């Protein structure tokens, strides 16, 4: 009977899961992908999943990627749903990116600057030609510094003249939207947290739109740096900070125009981007969107989507977005039925009798 076919059931779900597991594993003649392989050879995927999954753990991210068949949003979802169950012991000190051990650091606004330009491992100048040779082992790369040195950040170098806005100091502890619901108007710390874990594609599209005239801010990459920073925390029983490890970060300082306002002299302003792992696209897009969302604060007209804080923050989270888009697959026949009935009634009352 059709009725039975319409409604699902326990066995259907079990069978679907079994089929999924089988198709995920693929041909059993091929060995299972190891987590180390994913972590090392699909590192950029791991970085993205850590950023959107909002937890820095390369092994867990690799596990999630394998479990999700490489679907990175699904993998980020797995990670988020896991992290939310973990107890929170303490907060670390803010990481100091000025002391980052940079493997890459470039500035697009000065030909040379203290610390120099360092390309590092980048795809930027590769020719995008598919490589048909399965090269087993590349030769060791020359020019990798044995001991990378800290490089002074460009805003510190530039800041002395007052041409560039200084780091903001609100004195308030930053918001945490994993513990407090997002409320509007949202301060900059909640905005940055939301877009730091926001969907890379959504941020890139919004950032791109600001370059094409929707909230143009004439951006320049003041500095982009990738490297390792130390993570420190202060256990209450010790009273001083201890190093508990290091993480890889990508940071972007986007320098943008600012015409000045009634109360402020004209100076360059900054958009800020920070991403777990090596992900320049994410950090740059984030910095463009961060700057666009500061329009109101800087007395600029608010007209473009990227400047609309509520629009950006309500739609940047891909875990929320994918869930709600895909929930349309769930049965809606009760609602649809009531729509059918009301449409029939309206048509009958329209009196056409057709």
């Amino acid at each position: 009977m059709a009725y039975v076919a319409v409604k699902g059931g326990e066995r259907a779900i079990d069978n679907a899961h079994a089929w999924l597991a089988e198709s995920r594993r693929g041909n059993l003649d091929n060995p299972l992908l190891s987590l180390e392989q994913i972590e090392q050879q699909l590192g950029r995927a791991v970085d993205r999943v850590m950023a959107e999954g909002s937890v820095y753990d390369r092994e867990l991210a690799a596990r999630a990627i394998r479990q999700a068949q490489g679907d990175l949003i699904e993998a980020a979802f797995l990670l988020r749903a896991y992290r939310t169950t973990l107890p929170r012991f303490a907060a670390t000190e803010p990481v100091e990116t000025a002391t980052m051990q940079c493997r890459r650091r470039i500035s697009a606004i000065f030909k040379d600057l203290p610390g120099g330009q360092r390309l590092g491992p980048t795809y930027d100048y590769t020719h995008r030609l598919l490589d048909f040779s399965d090269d087993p082992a590349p030769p060791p790369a020359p020019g990798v510094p044995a001991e990378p040195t800290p490089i002074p950040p460009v805003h510190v170098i530039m800041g002395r003249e007052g041409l560039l806005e200084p780091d903001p100091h609100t004195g308030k502890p930053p918001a945490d939207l994993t513990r407090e619901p997002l409320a509007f108007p949202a301060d900059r710390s909640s905005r940055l947290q939301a877009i730091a874990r926001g969907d890379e594609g959504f941020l890139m599209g919004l950032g791109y739109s600001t370059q094409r005239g929707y909230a143009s801010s004439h951006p320049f990459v003041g500095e982009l740096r990738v490297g390792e920073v130390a993570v420190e925390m202060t256990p209450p029983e010790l009273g001083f900070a201890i190093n508990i490890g290091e993480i890889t970060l990508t940071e972007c300082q986007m320098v943008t125009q600012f015409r000045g306002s009634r109360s402020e002299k004209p100076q360059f302003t900054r958009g800020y981007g920070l991403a777990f792992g090596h992900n320049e696209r994410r950090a740059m897009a984030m910095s463009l969107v961060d700057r666009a969302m500061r329009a109101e604060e800087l007395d600029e007209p608010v007209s473009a989507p990227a400047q609309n804080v509520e629009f950006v923050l309500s739609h940047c989270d891909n875990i929320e977005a994918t869930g709600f888009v895909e929930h349309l697959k769930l049965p809606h026949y009760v609602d649809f039925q009531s729509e059918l009935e009301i449409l029939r009634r309206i048509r009958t009352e329209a009196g056409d009798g057709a």
Partner: protein
Amino acid sequence: MNGYNFAYLDEQTKRMVRRAILKAVAIPGHQVPFAGREMPLPYGWGTGGIQVTASVLGASDVLKVIDQGADDTTNAVSIRRFFARTAGVRTTTHTAEATLIQTRHRIPEQALREDQIIVYQVPAPEPLANLEPRRAETRQMHALAEYGAMHVKLYEDITRFGHVSISYDYPVMVNHRYLMSPSPIPAFDNPKMHMMPALQLFGAGREKRIYAVPPYTHVRSLDFADHPFRPTCAPAMCALCGAGNSYLDEVVTDDLGGRRFVCSDTDHCATRQAETA
């Protein structure tokens, strides 16, 4: 389940959710923001309802989960299993046996009692969202009870179609004060909310809002004196149990326009069939 707390959420989180619930009960129909957590089920699939259920569930509770009125729809099965697995509570399909009912898109046909709680899954808690998308604005509209825009919408429907064209998620006034989304239940179910003896809790996970209708609270579907609220249902009887006053699903039986109508509430239908058998 190994490695997880009873009913998945840790106790601190449950306490946070229960505080939001208490506030919601104290201000019927008012949306209380809460720090919704990621759940192992996707947003839009009942995460708000699941968090509410997880926070009020006790070991002795008997849980019923329905979607579209039915216990055997895939997502209802999935959520019921989630709690069977993470909380080990007894589950049931019988409305009368349940102490806690989580639902998507329906209210059971059988009247609920004082010792029961019904938890609604809510996709879009803001009833004014289609009229004003900015939440900062709608919050103010609620604070000032400024609901004229919704009345204008209903009025425009009446001038265009002869009556209100909202068929589900039909807005209600709770306790004469707050405009509230009843979640996407058919308008047919709205009258059941009025003076219901059971506690009604609403969870919206993605939008991070909780709201409530305490027992025996006045709930009125918006209407006009000359255009009273009229719920709709298919003008038919259930093909399986013969019920003439329950909400009916339409089942298409062939491609020649053949169809039959059956109760959307599977437990109600099965109980009636058992009684007549």
